[in-house]
């Protein structure tokens, strides 16, 4: 692979990792605010809102960290892609149902969930899938 392409892949991996590390920070610091935002999406059963709001920020953190330090790329990028698929679906459902919810993406009360949020989530989902495809072993294993 040429140098430019390798650099582009590294930039993609680092950007994705940095976005997830940043996204995890405020949620880890203020779990109550994040739980409120999760609850406002009205998607999870009430009993699951708190566990989700407590664990997902850490999953974002560890996956972001793994991407940045270039370890466990298969597991981390698969989880990042799964999370982005879930977040994208949540925002799409909120928009479709006309809910006026705070995004809950980065900082509490930071911005509303809008079509722009959906576009950004789709871009991140695409980036995660591209990265997963890139780190997926190409040769047969046996």
């Amino acid at each position: 692979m040429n140098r430019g392409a390798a650099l582009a892949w590294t930039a993609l991996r680092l950007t994705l990792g940095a976005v997830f590390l940043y996204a995890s920070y405020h949620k880890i610091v203020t779990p109550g605010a994040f739980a409120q935002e999760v609850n406002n999406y009205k998607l999870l059963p009430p009993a699951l809102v708190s566990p989700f709001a407590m664990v997902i920020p850490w999953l974002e953190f560890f996956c972001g960290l793994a991407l940045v330090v270039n370890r466990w790329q298969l597991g981390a990028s698969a989880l990042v892609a799964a999370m982005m698929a879930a977040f994208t679906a949540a925002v799409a459902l909120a928009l479709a149902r006309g809910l006026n919810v705070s995004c809950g993406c980065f900082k509490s009360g930071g911005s509303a969930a809008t079509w722009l949020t959906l576009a950004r989530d789709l871009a991140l989902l695409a980036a995660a899938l591209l990265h997963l495809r890139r780190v997926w072993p190409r040769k047969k294993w046996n």
Partner: protein
Amino acid sequence: MPPVALSGGARSRPPAAIVLAQAAVLLLLSFAAAAARSYLPDSIRWNGRWPTADTSAEQAYKMMAQPTDPPFASLAEAIALHGGGAVFIDARAAEEFAVGRIPRARNLPFYDLEAHEKAALADLKPDTRLVVYCEGVGCELSLFLGRELQARGFTDIRDFYGGFPEWQKAGLEVEK
């Protein structure tokens, strides 16, 4: 065939197994970190409850508000405050405000503060009695706006947490 070098050190397992193994470890780490975090005083509880459609406004306010937030105002209190000349501030988006609002309320959309701030607040004194509201249970904009108003020096704020839906449902006058 030379062994395929895989991240994680596995050399002969199918990629899907590696994905699952690594994902499981990352998930376990996350649960462990969340469990450790839960011992800090500002943590939420694993079995914490959040407002749903059948939560009353007062219960929901108690679940959502921080101790420093403007105090809760019930519907009866909101009616009395309205009659007493308190300034009502609607934290919802301009489009929702246009559809219907509490009479004489001013619109200060939380997500568009800068554009509306001057028109909504310029003539108010720091001790003017304010009532913030939004779309009732499930809407946190009035809480966020209350915090912003506190930060701007307003000292007499209430949060009519039942918001516009409760006002409308009670058959009270609505301005369009």
